[in-house]
């Protein structure tokens, strides 16, 4: 077999394997819901029933620079993490069990703690309170 053909077939095989792994893994991976809402009096209101099927919800407020990862904890309380990298203020990508910054490669775990620099500060946590059927995220 010619070297070029060998490389082509090897690369094709690798890409097929990678896409196969991706497809399998992605199919088992729940989609990341984004809940879009508007800011009222420096607060965001998120319905509790969004958490009937998942424990984490990405919240996007109108005119906000960064998304917010809102998690329902096992004790029924909520934690809101601002998806802003604490290194250079770049928006973060949710990875399923943490956050990744594409700008310099910082990683944070699901609690917002740094697992990989250059960021050295944990993600900012916003205050929340539960009101009847809603979770209110305070932006101040």
């Amino acid at each position, binding site marked *: 077999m010619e070297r070029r053909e060998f490389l082509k077939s090897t*690369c094709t095989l690798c890409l097929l394997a990678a896409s196969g792994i991706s497809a399998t893994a992605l199919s088992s991976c729940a989609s*990341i819901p984004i809940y879009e809402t508007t800011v009222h009096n420096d607060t965001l209101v998120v319905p509790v029933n969004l958490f009937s099927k998942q424990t984490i919800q990405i919240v996007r407020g109108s005119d906000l620079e960064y998304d917010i990862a809102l998690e329902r904890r096992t004790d029924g309380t909520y934690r809101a993490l601002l998806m802003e990298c604490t290194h250079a*203020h770049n928006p973060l*990508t949710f*990875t399923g069990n943490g956050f990744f910054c*594409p700008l310099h490669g910082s990683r944070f775990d699901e609690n917002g703690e740094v697992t990989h620099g250059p960021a050295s500060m944990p993600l900012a946590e916003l205050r929340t309170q539960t009101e009847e059927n809603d979770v209110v995220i305070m932006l101040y």
Partner: protein
Amino acid sequence: MNRAKYFAFLVLSLLPLEPITLAEGVYCAAGDSTNTKSSAQPTTSIGGYGNAFYQRDVDNKTAMMDLERVVLFVGHEFSSRTSFFSELEMEDAKVSGGEDGGEISFEQAYLQIRIDPTHSISAGLFLPRIGILNENHLPTEFNGNERNQVETFIIPSTWRELGIGFYGSLSSVPASYSIALVNGLSSAMFEHGSGIREGRFEGRNASANNLALTGSMRFFLQNTVIGVSGYYGGSVGLSPRQADSLQLESGIFGTPVIVGESHLEYESEGFNLKVLGTTVSIPKASDINRAYANNTPLLEYGAYLEIGCDLFQNIYRVAGQQLIAFLRYETLDMNAEIPSNGILDGTLKQRHIVCGLNYLPMNNVVVKVDVRFAHTGNQNPALILNPSPVAVPYNVDNTFFNLGLGFSF
């Protein structure tokens, strides 16, 4: 413009037009600002990184030390939607007029316009998303003193070009993507032995007759990242008349260079795995050789596998510090296939085994020690035009001992 003036221009161009006061929110990059609102005041962030190392060439019994690079990162947020990012790099500590060595350059300088929190446009000098190292190249984030050979010579990191890029994330699956249009390479500047590396313009007087398209997809699967990327670009920026006279195909994608790459990263509880494979194809290498006699190959490839383990997390339990033991295997060939008018150089088919330790006494400060065992093919006597009568025989096996420091903030 001489180098001193050029440097002064670069420094001045970094300075804000108006003095920054604390009221405007100047803070260190690692600050704890929580600008959630679009009405946030303009802010400037400062960061940087650098590394220095000692290298002993064991077989040739030589040694060197170098402050390899110090980079100053400056970012400025004009508004919630518009930001500026830059990295100004000084290599080898000193640049002196009329002397070789040392380099001052912008590694990045671009404006980013955010459409929403997960979509943005970048315009200016930026690093296309190709491979692992090109975007994320802080010395505290990669193992070993030297950047890996595959992403230095096959993917010529740090590969920055001028252009415009669109970056986004999918909402249906944990994945991000990018697509960018940048200036192309110059095949006239390709040099034998360094792949396409010397063909980069890096923002300086780039020809815009030829352009390149590059795109990437990256999937996040909890602790695993799977990425694929590609590059297709022209390498002849001459006018049609000049190109015709050299019998080269001109145009936007004329005499193309095609790069493909895929990688996988896994990180969990102190264990780290990286796998990357890449190829570079230059179908009209024969035309380039006829015009410029630079021994351009038809095909290059490279791949590496690296495993790392934080001993302080998994064995000795030391809080706040890391001791990463790693092993990397690399294979690459910068002339895997050559055209009929090329000359095969066995030394460009290489294998490297690197093992070592990274000690981080705190986040973002690292002491590195490693050994690289290099193996190449044989030298081709046809490539030695004027052999020295006192030249020592070429060693196909060589060992390099490296000791160094790195930081980022």
